[in-house]
């Protein structure tokens, strides 16, 4: 059984396709890099899997069950820009959010959860920052705090949106070490990544994406010159244009 199975996923933003009819399945225990040019729909793919953006079609299964039943086993680390950093919350409280699915309503957070939060912070080397407000952290520290929140959830699948964008060396090392540790525990990690130089070093699997799925497989087989070229060369401008026309005409708007 596959850890994550995606079928026929199509997403439009403002009437133009960002992802088009994507099918793939990822085996358990792989560290998967999602690679593709700007605007290829990498972040959207993660969001669509989680149901954060409206999809035109498609479905996802986690361990053979529909995603809606399996939310607790998927942890998501959004891009840093998506978060309100001014929000009055400390690092520790942020990490405790990760326990939401275990205690949804107002109850004092149990000692066990608190201890677990500290443990997660320790794993990302952030224990001494637990009482800081989240905007008082450096970019790398923010990213690590978010990873700690995902760890707190104790999921089996981790979706990370460019966790290494603009972070320092220490953070990059800590994050990669942690992800490898997760994979050793048979968890599955999907991560949007932009630095082509590190793909072979970091990932066991790679997913090449540019609106369509170009290729998915073990790094050695898929991360090859011809396939990378294909990923970065494809141009979907025409697709875009016609799709827009179709939908405006379909809605009865005037087209000059």
């Amino acid at each position, binding site marked *: 059984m596959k850890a994550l199975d995606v079928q026929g996923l199509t997403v439009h933003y403002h009437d133009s396709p960002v992802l088009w009819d994507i099918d793939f399945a990822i085996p358990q225990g792989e560290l998967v890099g999602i690679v593709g040019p700007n605007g290829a729909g990498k972040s959207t793919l993660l969001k669509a899997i*989680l149901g*954060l953006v409206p999809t035109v079609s498609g479905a996802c299964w986690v361990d053979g069950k529909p995603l809606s039943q399996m939310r607790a086993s998927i942890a998501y680390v*959004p891009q840093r820009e*998506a978060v*309100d950093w001014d929000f009055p919350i*400390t690092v520790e409280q942020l990490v405790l959010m990760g326990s*939401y699915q275990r205690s949804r309503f107002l109850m004092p957070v149990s000692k066990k959860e608190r201890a677990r939060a500290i443990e997660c912070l320790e794993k990302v080397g952030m224990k001494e920052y637990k009482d800081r407000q989240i905007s008082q952290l450096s970019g790398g520290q923010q990213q690590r705090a978010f990873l700690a929140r995902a760890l707190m959830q104790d999921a089996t699948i981790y979706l990370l949106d460019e966790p290494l964008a603009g972070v320092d060396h220490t953070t990059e090392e800590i994050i990669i070490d942690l992800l490898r540790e997760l994979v050793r525990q048979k968890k599955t990690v999907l991560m949007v990544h932009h630095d082509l130089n590190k793909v072979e070093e970091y990932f066991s699997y790679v997913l090449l994406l540019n609106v369509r799925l170009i290729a998915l497989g073990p790094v050695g087989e898929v991360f090859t010159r011809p396939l990378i070229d294909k990923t970065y060369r494809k141009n979907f401008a025409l697709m875009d244009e016609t799709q827009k026309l179709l939908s405006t005409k379909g809605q009865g708007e005037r087209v000059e």
Partner: protein
Amino acid sequence: MIHYFTDPVLSAPTIGSMLMCLLAGFVGTFSVLLKRSLVGEALSHASYPGVILGLIIAKLLFVENQLIPLVGAALSSLLGIYLIQKLVWNYKIQSDSALTFVLASFFGVALVFLSSVQTSYPTLYREMQSYLFGQAATQTNVQVVLYLVLTGIVLTGTLLFYRPIKIVISDPEYAQAVGINRHQIYMLIWAITVLSVVVGIRSLGVVLMSSMLIFPAVTSRLWTEKLEVVLLLASLLGMLSGFFGVYMSHEMSHAVSFPTGPMIVVCAALFFILSAIFSPKQGLLFRAIRKFSFEKRCTEENLLKLLYKCSVEKNAVQFSCDEIAKRFQASLWQPLGALERKGWVKRAEDSIELTPSGMLWGRKIVRLHRLWEVYLVEYCEVGKDRVHPSAEAMEHIITPEIEEELEVLLSHPTVDPHKQPIPPHEVV
């Protein structure tokens, strides 16, 4: 002061105002943190046609019912928020335009009705007007009980959904990813905002209502970084503003007639001004102090750096005051005193001696300065002759973590771009 709570005439307005302000302070925190403070303003204005309609209906039915205008207020407010959502979602109108549209058109319709009854039904007109600018002084026990019930409902509801609310406001995408329906949470927030508006308009009036939704939250945000504390403090500040508004307007009533509602707003604004000056986090006062002490530290470190450089040039640790004063280009005595207190220099009659610990710190500053220069030249491709000013500033602020990061990034450089040696890392 205690008689404000026991006096049969005073107690209802006092407790009523305090309750409404408590509730508004608490509820308003959510919309402020959502960065949608104006929704409160729109909702309170949008409630006014409902109030007017309620009063007219009550008049037609010949009943003296306080509840009818409040129900009207709630319904018309809810209609307002529904329209705002519609305008934003279906017609792609900017949310600030949609807010203004609803605020102004609802309020306009209400004012048309208001002025139409001015001459024909003067009592009704006065009643309608009391909701416009508020009339805290005439609240009755019945209203207080009603407010108490509504406050209870809102607080219980909020506390029940506290965790999802917190997640939705701070990180809406994550909230959805863990299976929270964020639109339901937004609706919950707007529903409790409507309830707090309903409770508040009798004391404060629809015009000033939004101030109590916003001021306490903004003020308490200056004091703390914890949501729980923000909520508590905002409720408390709201309550205090409510009390002092009633208190001041009553105490001064024999001299001047200051209405209670506006007085409450003035109190809340005063709390904000005081906080803006005295809060340790962002207050003007502490900011000035921190700025001053940072500048002072920079001067001290510059002096220490100079002493260290002199000691390298001369291979000595003792210098004459005159020589240092000439090279330092700024007043020497204050920073020198500070360095002496820290044990980094010793002063004799006419000379200055750099102690071993002073040497260590001086070396560290020079090291940071040169490391930064290497970073600028090698990593950012800045011209060699242009890196000095930036390094002069950075040498005072680079933290040990950044220092380590620089070391790794530049693979442990030993000379700076001007061929000066970079002192090795030492534990200070």
